[in-house]
């Protein structure tokens, strides 16, 4: 049982024990779950230094020619990702101890968290598509459980159902892609696939289609444009959940999967361009929408969406044909590097928001907060560090990773422009958030009495802030991506980006200082481009309409016509025959006469 297996199975054991055994004692289950997260983190530290390669396999299912294995593989990227998952997971666990102290379903919450850790590490360590798909859906379920934690609230129940269904649609695409690949190559392991792709040549359209379908899975999980509707609603869940799932790990799973499949993207240029454009579109739209939101967690959700768009765009460039030959792995490394740094400062921002909400007695509307920097100095400072990192100011990690991404985007100028605009917007809405929440004066009673959050919640904030600062430097990421593999921006790109960032922050501050409500209100952005309404309409028309039609047809055609029809037929014939046995003597003789005439007629024909 190698270390990787322990990291994988420990949270599952924790979740199972909570669910079965110690359900009653909430605190004990909380500690068990935190302990398991802690142990996993320590083991990961050990694992990272160890050599990579195969980490044992267990045949899950084998029938006929099919062999599905639960096998773990430790490559460069995996080590980085597993560190992120376990570190952020541990910090979120510790934060939740404080945040959920007086929650009724505490045991259930921690069981959900452990289940999530189990499925997330499953995705990270997976070595073949089937295993990744299994944990892909398990992550979907655990996010369903966690979003719907307060299931008494209708909005939470709706949000969790919506999240699961949208993920499910993504999984449909993902599975279709896997099947296409398996049909063509007969392989599902990543390494095996890589070899067969180098050796044989497959028909490009099939590869493109398979890659687009697999990307569809990533779209579902990382909430890219068509399937992004569930992420803002997923804020219904407790804030630590949003921090863990919707900032650092789960949504990053899509990008992580794309990086693991870069060799496929390289082999499918058409799909690669699709990925790039979807990523860019998501980044832009999300940034635009974020500027008009008034709920603190929704703003952060859209900012996550936008950053994910960046990462997807970057990874998409792997298949970009730069003068005949693909850009290659360097692009996906840039994407992953951004993911790595983003995990830290976005988790920091979410936990900071959680702290603010906790302090203001579960108040989420930023227009009811204000002047919190004096009341909650530590949270405020860490939050500002996070904002600076997200905006891409030089010394912090955001700057380095965003530069890497923009360096890759330089290959196509239109996307570069979109990237720059999004960078400006990111800086703008983050500074808008900070000025409203932390500076100026308190706008409500709750904001006035807000006190600093307990140590248990402050400690993770400080650690993450530290991480956000140092993550960008070479010693923090060198051990899993060689600096040489990272693209280096040429020309004055870094300078331009910094200027854009500063400009965004300044405009944001100036526009929102001391205001009671948004200066400009763009209805279309507030209503999120009416995408939700459009989807509801789509669902109502197609699903319920067709379903109703199907039910009607089912009732009428099949039931009425065939089944009842034949029943009525037999009854009808019965009635007709009964008429013949009427008591009337005349009729009998009459029929007798008819019989005679017919018989004679037949005889004459027979003889004649």
């Amino acid at each position, binding site marked *: 049982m190698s270390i990787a297996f322990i990291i994988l199975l420990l949270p599952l054991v924790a979740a199972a024990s909570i669910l079965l055994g110690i359900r009653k004692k909430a605190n004990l289950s909380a500690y068990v779950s935190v302990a398991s997260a802690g142990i996993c983190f320590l083991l990961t530290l050990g694992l990272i230094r160890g050599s990579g390669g195969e980490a044992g396999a267990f045949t899950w299912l084998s029938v006929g020619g099919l062999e599905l294995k639960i096998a773990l593989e430790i490559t460069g990227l995996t080590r980085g990702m597993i560190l992120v998952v376990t570190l952020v997971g541990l910090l979120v666990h510790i934060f939740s101890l404080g945040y959920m102290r007086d929650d009724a379903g505490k045991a259930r919450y921690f069981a959900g968290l452990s289940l999530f850790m189990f499925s997330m590490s499953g995705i990270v360590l997976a070595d073949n598509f089937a295993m990744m798909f299994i944990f892909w859906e398990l992550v979907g379920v655990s996010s369903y459980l966690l979003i719907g934690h307060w299931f008494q609230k209708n909005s939470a129940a709706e949000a969790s159902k919506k999240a699961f269904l949208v993920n499910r649609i993504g999984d449909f695409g993902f599975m279709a892609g896997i099947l296409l690949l398996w049909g063509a190559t007969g392989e599902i392991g990543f390494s095996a696939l890589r070899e067969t792709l180098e050796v044989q040549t497959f028909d490009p359209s099939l590869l493109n289609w398979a890659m687009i379908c697999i990307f569809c899975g990533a779209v579902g999980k990382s909430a890219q444009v068509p399937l992004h509707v569930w992420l803002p609603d997923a804020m219904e869940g407790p804030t630590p959940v949003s921090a863990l799932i919707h900032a650092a790990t789960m949504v990053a799973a899509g990008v992580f999967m794309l990086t693991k499949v870069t060799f496929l993207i390289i082999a499918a240029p058409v799909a690669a361009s699709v990925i790039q454009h979807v990523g860019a579109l998501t980044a832009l739209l999300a940034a635009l929408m974020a500027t008009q939101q008034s709920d603190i967690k929704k703003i952060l959700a859209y900012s996550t969406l936008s950053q994910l768009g960046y990462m997807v765009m970057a990874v998409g460039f792997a298949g970009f044909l730069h003068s005949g030959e693909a850009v290659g792995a360097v692009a996906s490394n840039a994407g992953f590097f951004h993911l790595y740094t983003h995990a830290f400062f976005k988790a920091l921002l979410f936990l900071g928001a959680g702290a603010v909400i906790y302090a203001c007695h579960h108040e989420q509307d930023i227009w009811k907060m204000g002047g919190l920097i004096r009341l909650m100095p530590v949270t405020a400072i860490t939050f500002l560090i996070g904002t600076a990192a997200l905006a891409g100011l030089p010394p912090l990690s955001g700057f380095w990773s965003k530069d890497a991404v923009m360096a890759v985007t330089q290959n196509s100028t239109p996307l570069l422009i979109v990237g720059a605009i999004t960078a400006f917007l990111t800086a703008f809405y983050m500074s808008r958030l900070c000025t409203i929440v932390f500076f100026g004066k308190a706008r409500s009673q709750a904001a006035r009495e807000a006190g600093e959050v307990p140590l248990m919640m402050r400690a993770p904030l400080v650690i993450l802030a530290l991480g956000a600062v140092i993550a960008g430097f070479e010693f923090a990421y060198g051990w899993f991506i060689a600096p040489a593999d990272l693209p280096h921006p040429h020309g004055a790109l870094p300078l331009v980006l910094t200027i854009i960032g500063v400009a965004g922050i300044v405009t944001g501050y100036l526009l929102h200082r001391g205001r009671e409500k948004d200066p400009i209100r763009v209805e279309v952005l507030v209503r999120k481009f009416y995408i939700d309404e459009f989807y509801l309409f789509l669902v109502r028309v197609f699903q319920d309409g067709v379903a109703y039609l199907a039910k009607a047809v089912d009732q009428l055609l099949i039931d009425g016509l065939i089944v009842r029809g034949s029943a009525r037929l037999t009854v009808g014939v019965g009635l007709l025959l*009964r008429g*013949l*046995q*009427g*008591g*009337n*003597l*005349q009729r009998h*003789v*009459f029929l007798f*006469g008819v019989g005679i005439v017919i018989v004679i007629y037949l005889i004459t024909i027979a003889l004649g």
Partner: protein
Amino acid sequence: MMPSLNEYLMVSGLLFAIGFAGVLMRRNIIIIFMCLEMMLSAANLSLVAFWRFGNGQGMPAQGYDAQVLVFFVIAVAAAEVAVGLAIIVALFRARCTVHVEDLNSMKG
């Protein structure tokens, strides 16, 4: 000029038709009974006619089976009339009517 077999058969056929029409159209069960007797005697007539023209040249057939058969038919008809009329009497006493429409208790 002597009558031919066809004429005899035609006459017996007509008589049978009349009897049959009577049974079909009349309501009164007694009349139906009489017509029944007519139909029977028509059959006898054609039997005897066939016997008389038995050998094809207008001469009677050898054996007298036809006449014996007619004899039996008449005997049976007599028995049948007796039983029939007894039933009618019993029926009349029970239902006080002889009209056929009212007697349909045997409806299916």
